[in-house]
């Protein structure tokens, strides 16, 4: 297969390219998924940067790592974690932290991010971004865990607001304050997912603008956009953050407001379910780029946009 031909299979280690820890620009990027590896190995699709899910690259070796190594030579990279479970009461898995640290040392991502959620309890990894009650107790745990992660990585991370489907009566802090306060106390930044804001606001009946207005722009290091499903659960309407379609208009509106408020930021188009052709993804990123150009034309020039 053609993808193989473009793959330099090197038993050695280390990144030889020119993009050593190059910053992720305040421009539109897309998530790199294996379905599109071939296009990236055989060409240079026009995207300003790429984001991967860190946990997909924690394997010891094999074609997946070799592929990322090859593609990384040509694009700034963001590593977006989904398995660290920053909200776990039992603390973080030291082995997982160590593996992530090795990944970051090897690929030198410009950005590293995780979620305001939890996935692990009693040693079981539940493979979903599960909701926290927004309490002082949970905030303390989150801040402690973020601190441990930042110490282990030797760098600042960003934390992302999740989509959620249930809430807890014991919550005493609005979600936006919880996220911003965790960032302030731990020294991390925020990855603002405006699709998640829309989904959670709709599901829990709060105003998305209240969320956006409460966020200090200088904490925001990245913005995510994605599609969601407008569906039903148990016979009642709900929005599910499935990353399976183009971005809804209401979310584009939120992105426009966010960029107007916060200035130019890296914007990522995410798609995970039923992946479309790469062009569709690039088209969505292009629309985000047009917004960036209109609202924040002073973005730095990029040498790797074809």
């Amino acid at each position, binding site marked *: 297969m053609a993808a*193989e031909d473009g*793959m330099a*299979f090197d*038993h050695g280690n280390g990144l030889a390219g020119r993009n050593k820890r190059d910053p992720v620009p305040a421009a539109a990027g897309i998530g790199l998924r294996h379905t599109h590896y071939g296009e990236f190995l055989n060409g240079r699709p026009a995207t300003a940067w790429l984001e991967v899910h860190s*946990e*997909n690259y*924690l*394997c*010891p*070796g*094999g*074609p*997946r790592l*070799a592929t990322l190594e090859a593609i990384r030579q040509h694009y700034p990279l963001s590593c977006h974690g*989904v*398995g*660290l*479970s920053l*909200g*776990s*009461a*039992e603390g973080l*898995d030291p*082995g*997982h932290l160590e*593996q992530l640290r090795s990944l970051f040392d090897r690929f030198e991502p410009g950005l590293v991010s995780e979620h305001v959620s*939890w*996935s*692990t*309890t*009693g*040693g*079981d*990894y*539940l*493979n*979903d971004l*599960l909701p*926290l*009650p927004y*309490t002082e*107790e*949970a905030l303390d*745990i989150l801040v402690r865990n973020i601190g441990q992660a930042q110490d282990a990585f030797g760098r600042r991370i960003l934390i992302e607001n999740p989509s959620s*489907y*249930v*809430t*807890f*009566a*014991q919550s005493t802090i609005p979600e936006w304050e919880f996220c911003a306060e965790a960032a302030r106390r731990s020294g991390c930044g925020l990855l603002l997912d405006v699709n998640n804001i829309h989904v959670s606001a709709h*599901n*829990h009946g709060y105003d998305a603008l209240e969320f956006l207005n409460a966020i200090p722009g200088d904490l925001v290091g990245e913005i995510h956009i994605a599609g969601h499903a407008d569906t039903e*659960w*148990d016979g*009642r309407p*709900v929005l*599910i953050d499935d990353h399976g379609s183009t971005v809804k208009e209401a979310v584009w509106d939120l992105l426009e407001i966010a960029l107007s408020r916060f200035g130019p930021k890296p914007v990522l188009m995410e798609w995970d379910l039923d992946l479309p052709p790469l062009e569709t993804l690039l088209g969505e990123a292009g629309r985000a780029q047009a917004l960036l150009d209109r609202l924040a034309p002073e973005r730095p020039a990029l040498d790797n946009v074809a």
Partner: protein
Amino acid sequence: MLPDLQTAFCAGTVGRDTAAVAALADGGMENGHRFGIYRNNIFQSLTGVLAAAFPTVSKLVGDENFAVLAHRFIAAHPPQRPSLYAYGGNFAAFLAGFAPAVEELPFLPDLAQVEWAVNEAYFEADAEPLVADHLAGLAPETYARLRLHLHPTVRLIGSDWPVWDLWGAEALPDPWPPGEQEGAQRVLVRRPESKVDVVMLTPGDFAFLGALAAGDALGEAAAAGAAAGPDFDLATCLAGHLAGGTFHSGYTIDAS
């Protein structure tokens, strides 16, 4: 408190414990009718992980049956670490203990072992395979003391069933394959470079590589190969595996 909430969430999702969900609702979980979204996310995403690691098993039993297998497996053995490339290592053993499936498809656990071996080989650490050129400079008098080591991606699976034929099959075999001695196949899985090979071995070859894996020297392994298969020929076997990348470049020479 958060630890209790997280324990109950786990019981209510992977544990499918309705009492735990009721306790969460009593404890203040709002929109509890949506709790099932999380359970669905967990089971469905992990079922997808297993289906990707065991594509032939999934294909042969069909989507609905595979979901039954996967859901039972996930509930009994949720992932213990957040690296899903490593999730499913005990799926073959689980299948062996799931009577409804093995009564109908007795080869299923062995087939799952082959698929897991492919998965492991795919993600295993990269290493340089031994090629003939590596040995070309050796003095012939050291040949007898050569000790070969298997490439770290190598996995060996012996089965009473024709698992090499079954691996990658799109449909159940028809006619039904013979079991036991008649249909037995032995499989070598390896990834010397970027591609995973799934190789059918002769009984002699299989015994030879198994002996090497156990640490035997060439002479002992060759004896094991000859005992298992009368047509075993050490020179042909070595040439084939040198060409295929079955050995690791780090050979050693025993002290004389």
